[in-house]
C-alpha cells in the first residue's frame, strides 16, 4: 500500500507544477501593467517630420475625433511587431494616428516606413526626446488614445491583437 501512495503523490505534484507553469505562461511578465489615466494632453510645439514646419499641439488634436499618438523609432525592435496592428488600425475611419518619431535619424525612419508602409496620418519628429518626456512616456513604443483633449488610454509597450481590439471597442 505504501509503495502505491508515493507515486500517486508524486504524480499529483507534477501535475500541479504543470498547471501552475501553464497558467504562469499566460501572465506576461514583460511590461508593467497599463494605466488608465484621464488627464489633459500637454500642449507643445513640434516639428513636422516631413516638412520640418513647426506646428502647435492644439492644431493637431482638435474636435471630437479620436487620435492615437504613437511614439516610435526605426531602431526599436518591438515597433516592428506592432506595426501591422497600426496598419490595421489606420483603416478605421474615425481615428487618426499621429506618429511621434523618437530620437531617430530621419533617413532610417524613412526607410522603415518605405519598407513597412506608413500607417500615420501625421508624423511629428522628437529628435531630443523632450516631447515624449512631457507626455510621461516610459520608452518606445508607447501609445496614447486621445479624445476631446483627454488621454483616455495609455498603452505601454507594443500594441498587440488584444490591445487593438480594445482600442477598436473604445472608439466605436
Amino acid at each position, binding site marked *: 500500500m505504501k509503495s502505491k501512495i508515493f*507515486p500517486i503523490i*508524486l*504524480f499529483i505534484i*507534477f501535475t500541479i507544477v*504543470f498547471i*501552475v*507553469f*501553464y*497558467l*504562469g*505562461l*499566460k*501572465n*506576461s*511578465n*514583460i511590461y508593467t501593467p497599463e494605466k488608465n489615466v484621464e488627464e489633459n494632453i500637454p500642449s507643445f510645439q513640434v516639428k513636422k517630420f516631413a516638412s520640418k514646419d513647426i506646428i502647435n499641439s492644439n492644431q493637431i488634436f482638435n474636435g471630437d475625433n479620436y487620435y492615437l499618438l504613437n511614439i516610435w523609432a526605426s*531602431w*526599436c*525592435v518591438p515597433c516592428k511587431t506592432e506595426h501591422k496592428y497600426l496598419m490595421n488600425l489606420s483603416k478605421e475611419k474615425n481615428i487618426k494616428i499621429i506618429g511621434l518619431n523618437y*530620437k531617430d535619424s530621419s533617413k532610417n525612419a524613412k*526607410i522603415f516606413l518605405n*519598407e513597412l508602409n506608413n500607417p500615420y496620418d501625421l508624423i511629428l519628429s522628437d529628435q531630443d526626446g523632450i516631447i515624449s518626456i512631457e507626455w510621461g512616456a516610459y520608452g518606445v513604443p508607447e501609445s496614447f488614445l486621445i479624445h476631446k483633449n483627454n488621454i483616455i488610454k495609455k498603452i505601454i509597450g507594443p500594441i498587440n491583437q488584444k490591445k487593438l481590439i480594445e482600442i477598436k471597442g473604445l472608439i466605436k
Partner: protein
Amino acid sequence: MSSSIGYYSLVFGLGVSFFIFFFSFKNFYSPLKFDSKIISFVFLQFIFVIISFFGLILSFVNSDFSNETVFNHSHTSKPLFYKISGTWGNHEGSLLLWLLVLTLFIFLFLLRSKDQPKQYRILTVLFQQIIIIGFFVFLLKTSNPFNYIFPVPKEGLGLNPILQDPALAIHPPMLYLGYVGTSVIFSSALAAICSNYISKLWAQHVKEWVLISWIFLTLGILLGSIWAYYELGWGGFWFWDPVENVSLMPWLALTTLLHCILVLEKKPILTSWVVILSISTFALSMCGTFLVRSGILNSVHTFANDPERGLFILIFLFILIFLSFFIFLFFYKKDTQNIKSFFWLSKETSILINNWFMMYFLSVVLIGTTYPIFLEVISSEKISVGPPFYNMLIAPFLIPFLFAMAIGPRLKWIKSDIEGKFYLLLFLIISIVLSLLIVKNLDINFLLNTILLTAALYLFFITLRDFVTKKSQNLSQNLAHFSFSVLILSILLNNIFSYEIITNLKINESYKSEKLKISFESIEQEDKQNFKSIVGKFVIEEFDGDVETMKPELRIYNQPNIVTSEADIKINIFHDKFMTMNYVQNQDYFNIRYQLKPFMIWIWISTIMLSVSGLLSFIQKNHEK
C-alpha cells in the same frame, strides 16, 4: 540560398529519425549483434544538422537579411567574430546548437559504447531520438531559424551590444555541451533501467559522460559569471538571478550524481539515487530552457518571449518527466540483496550526508526561483527573491557540508576508525584560531562568519596536507575538494573585505574618503567600428601610498542604439580594483562606482581548477582502460 539549404537539411535530418527507429526496432528483436546501420544513420543525422548549422553561420557571415533571424540579430557593421557568434546569440540559433550537440553526443556515445550490451545501446539511441525529434519539431514549428522575409531589408537590427563580448561568445556553447551531455545520461539511465543493466559496469561506462557534462557545465557557468562581472557593471559575479540559478540547479544535481556514480562504480549501492539523479539532472536542464525561453521569468537573458514556444517546451518537458517516471515505476527493480546497513563512520555515509546537503541546496535554489511564479499565478502578487534569502538559507548549511567534505574522503569504505587521525584535530584548532584573527576586528556577524571561515580553512588545510604527503591516491578528488575550499574561501573573504564608493563627479573634481581620493582628470572620445567610445581618466590615490589610474569606458552603439558601460578592472592576485562610470541625465556629472574586491581572481582560478580536476579524473579513467 544557404538558408534554404539549411532548412531542407533540417527536414531531412528529422526524416532520418524514422530510419533510426525502424532499424533499431528491427535489430532489437533479432538475435544478430548490433546493427552498424544505426550508427551510420545517426551519423547521417548529425551531418544534416551540421550542414544546417553552417548554413545559418554562412547567412550571418554574408549578412543575408532575407533570413529573419539574421535580420533581427545582425548588422553589416558588426565585426566578423560577432557575426559568427551571433549565430547562437539568439533563440533560434541557440536551439539549432542544442540540436547539433544532441546529435553529436549520441553519435559519440555509440562510438564509445562498443563493449556494452546490445539492447542497452539500442534503447539509449531510441530515448535520445525521442529528445532529438522533440527538438526538431520545436525548431521547425515554433522557432525556425530560416524564416524568409520579403521584401529583403537593407540592414539588420543588430546584436544587443552587451552580448558582443568574447566570453559571451563561447559561454552558450560551453553551457550547452554541459546541458546536452546530461541528455545522454538521461537516455542511458532509462535504457539501463529497461534492460536491467544498472550495475557497476554501467556506472563505469556512464561515468565519462557525467564527467564531460560536469566539466562543460562548470566552465559554462564560470564564463557567464565572468561576463556578468565585467560587462554588467555591477561588480558582482553571482546575482542569484533566475537564469543563473537555472544553470546552478543541474550543476548541483550533476555534482551529486558524480559522487553517487563514484560509489556505484565500486559497490552496488545507492542505485536509486543514481537513477533518480540522472533523470532529474536532465529534467532540470530542460526546465532551465523552459524558464529562460518562455519569458515566464524576467531576467538579463530575456531572449524571446513567445508563449507558444514556452507551451511547447513545457509539454515536451512533462512528457519526458512522466515517461521517465513510468519507466522508473514499472521497470526499476531494487536489488534487495545488496542493501546492507552502512556503518555510521564510513565513506558511504559521508557521501550520503553530502547528497542530502546537496539536495537541500538544490531545493533552496529551486524554491527561490519558482516561488515567484507560483505566487503570481495563485495570488497575482509580484515578488522577487533576492540574495538575502539564499545567503540566509545556504550559508549555515555550508558549515557541516564543508566538514563532511574534509573528513569524508579520509574514511574507508564500509568501516573506519579514527586512530592515527589526530592531525584532523590539530588542523581544526589552527583553522579556528586563524578565522578568529581574521574576523576579530570587523563589524560583521561574528559567529556565523567565524565558523564558516573555520570550516573553509579546515577543508583547505586538510586537502593541502594531502598534496604534500601524497597520501591521497585519488588526486582528482583531492584537487576538486581543494579547489572548492579555495572557492568558498575567496567568496567569503571577498564578501567580508569588499568596499565600494559611489559618487557623482565632474571633470577636474575629486572625492575624498577615509581610505582614498578619486580625481576625475579628463575624458576622451573616439569613434570605433560600430560604437562611439567615451573613456574617462581617473587617478586613485590610496593613503597608504598606492596610486592607480583607472579608465572606465562608455560605449554608445549605433545599431541598435544602446549605451553600455565597460568597467576598467585592475587585477592582481590579492584584489581587483573595479571602476565603472555612467551618464547622469542632462548634466556634466558622471556617476562613478569604484570597488575594491579582494581575492576576486581566486574565484575564477578555483573554478578552473575544479574543472581541471574533472578533466584529470576523465584522463585517469581513459588511461586505465
